[in-house]
């Protein structure tokens, strides 16, 4: 009685809603399960963290070394992805050449293959006896595997497709008439790209760089295969977490929490600056 009374009251005095009422349960229920599944593990991390000696553990030299290695390699990888990925995206979006669709498909392959396979492939090409690596070794005495450079290359391999796809999408969505306007004003293609196209797609480039950086920071499979697991030179945070889990689970929790906070902090700041600009 009460219920029906309040309902008719809201219908006469409140806003009369037109529509199909509350969202249906067959959609709500799986959505709630999905949210719980994504959020609960993070809650677990926070709850189980050894808060009392957190300060001491975070400042341990090994943790700091792994953190520094992760942040620096992910950043260098992102810069490399930008340097090579943005022109590649431009080529895919703005030019017609034979086999363009095939190249585009190839570029996205690292997205779908398991990172470990990527690591093996890198080893086969750039390893000491690899297709290219043997010449690097013979002519320049340069050995890539199991160095910090290998960490960076593994990250670039898995992360670049994110950037290329994001920037290519932005370029395809950009109004090309602005480029024509620039051309009528005497701008050559490089000037048009640098002064008109790039500023127009900057949000897309920023979003791509964020995705790219996050993917590089979390890289595990290709890194451990191609670069190994040497503290200080190739042991990044994800590798350190995995190693700690075998011997000292509490340390693993601490490292994971640090990784989580760092990614969240960086993503939050950059998102503010790039994506909502």
């Amino acid at each position: 009685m009460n219920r029906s009374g309040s309902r008719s009251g809201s219908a006469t005095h409140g806003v009369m809603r037109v529509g199909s009422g509350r969202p249906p349960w067959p959609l709500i229920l799986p959505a709630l399960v999905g949210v719980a599944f994504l959020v609960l593990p993070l809650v677990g991390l926070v709850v189980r963290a050894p808060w009392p000696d957190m300060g001491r553990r975070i400042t341990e030299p090994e943790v700091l070394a792994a953190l520094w290695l992760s942040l620096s390699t992910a950043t260098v990888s992102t810069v490399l992805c930008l340097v090579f990925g943005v022109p590649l995206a431009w080529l895919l979006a703005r030019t017609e050449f034979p086999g363009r669709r095939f190249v585009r498909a190839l570029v996205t392959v690292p997205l779908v293959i398991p990172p470990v396979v990527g690591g093996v492939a890198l080893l086969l090409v750039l390893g000491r006896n690899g297709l290219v690596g043997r010449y690097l070794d013979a002519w320049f005495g340069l050995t890539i595997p199991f160095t910090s450079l290998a960490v960076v290359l593994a990250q670039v391999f898995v992360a670049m497709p994110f950037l290329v796809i994001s920037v290519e999408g932005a370029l395809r969505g950009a109004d090309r008439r602005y480029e024509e306007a620039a051309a009528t004003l005497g701008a050559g293609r490089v000037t048009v790209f640098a002064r008109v196209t790039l500023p127009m797609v900057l949000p897309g480039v920023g979003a791509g760089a964020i995705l790219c950086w996050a993917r590089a920071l979390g890289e595990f499979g290709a890194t451990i295969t191609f670069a190994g697991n040497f503290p200080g030179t190739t042991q990044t945070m994800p590798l350190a977490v995995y190693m700690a889990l075998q011997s000292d689970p509490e340390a693993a929790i601490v490292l994971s929490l640090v990784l989580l906070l760092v990614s969240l902090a960086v993503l939050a700041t950059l998102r503010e600056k790039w994506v909502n600009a």
Partner: protein
Amino acid sequence: MPVLSADLCLSRGDFTLDVALSVAPGEVLALLGPNGAGKSSALRALAGLIPLTGGHVRLDGDDHTRTPVERRPIGMVFQDYLLFQHMSALDNVAFGPRCQGLSKADARARAAALLDHMDLAGYARSRPRDLSGGQAQRVALARALAVRPRLLLLDEPMAALDVGTRDHVRGRLRHLLEEFDGATVLVTHDPLDAMVLADRIAVIENGRVVQQGPPAEVARRPRTPYVARLVGLNLFHGRAEGTVVTLSGGARVEVHEAYDGPALVAFPPRAVALYPERPRGGPRNVWPLEVDGVERFGDQVRVRLTGPLDLAADISPAALAELGLARGGTVWAGVKAAEVECYPG
């Protein structure tokens, strides 16, 4: 010698464009035509944004048919102005001079002088999105003129403006275009823009120039039904023998000037008088016609009539009430011979 002399041939699928243009120093040519007639294609071909399949583009006697866009001595004002949103108004105008190799300071000085000349000095630092439509149009014009072009191209320069501001902005644009000493080609589908802005009008239909001349002549003596509709005249094809023109539908029209041969006959709807019965001692041209429709037209009423000839008549609402016209009714239409313009067809 004309600044611009061009013969533009383009074919794309079923559409072909074949237009010859010549524009003298300081002259403004308007390409007027319906959507899809090919006028924008002609403009883009002049700019080099689309390649010609034949013909040539000459500026001051130099052949530019194969010159890439960025090296043509042109300036272009686009339909939505296309000001670079990430640059200030000043940097938009300085963009062209910078591309031509001027130093940053020189380019900005030139841009500032142009903006000042267009009464936009106070908006130099403004972003394009903060400008009104008329201001944006002047910045776009300044940007196009900053490269000191010999050929200025304007694509539907009035289309992006509110109807309320158009008259003012149009008058101002006319004034600014008068100062330019190169050739100007503008594209519009609005006859008023063409009449006010241009010294000469070329009407393009289906990829061909169907009529070319000064605005007053195009307005008085249209050559196609499209132009007649634009300038608001009744137009008929016929054959003149002395002062009588026999129209293709069989009706006869008396005119005041004698001519022999294929002719066009035009008169304005307001020159048509309507009578309930055959008038005695009235105009020399009278036809019994059937009412096809009645619609409001400004403070007048436009009556569409059909019969031996289809024509429109503008009468006052009071006259309409007196005649008691309804669709399907019969009425006599009369036009004085002195009101009828007759010219070679």
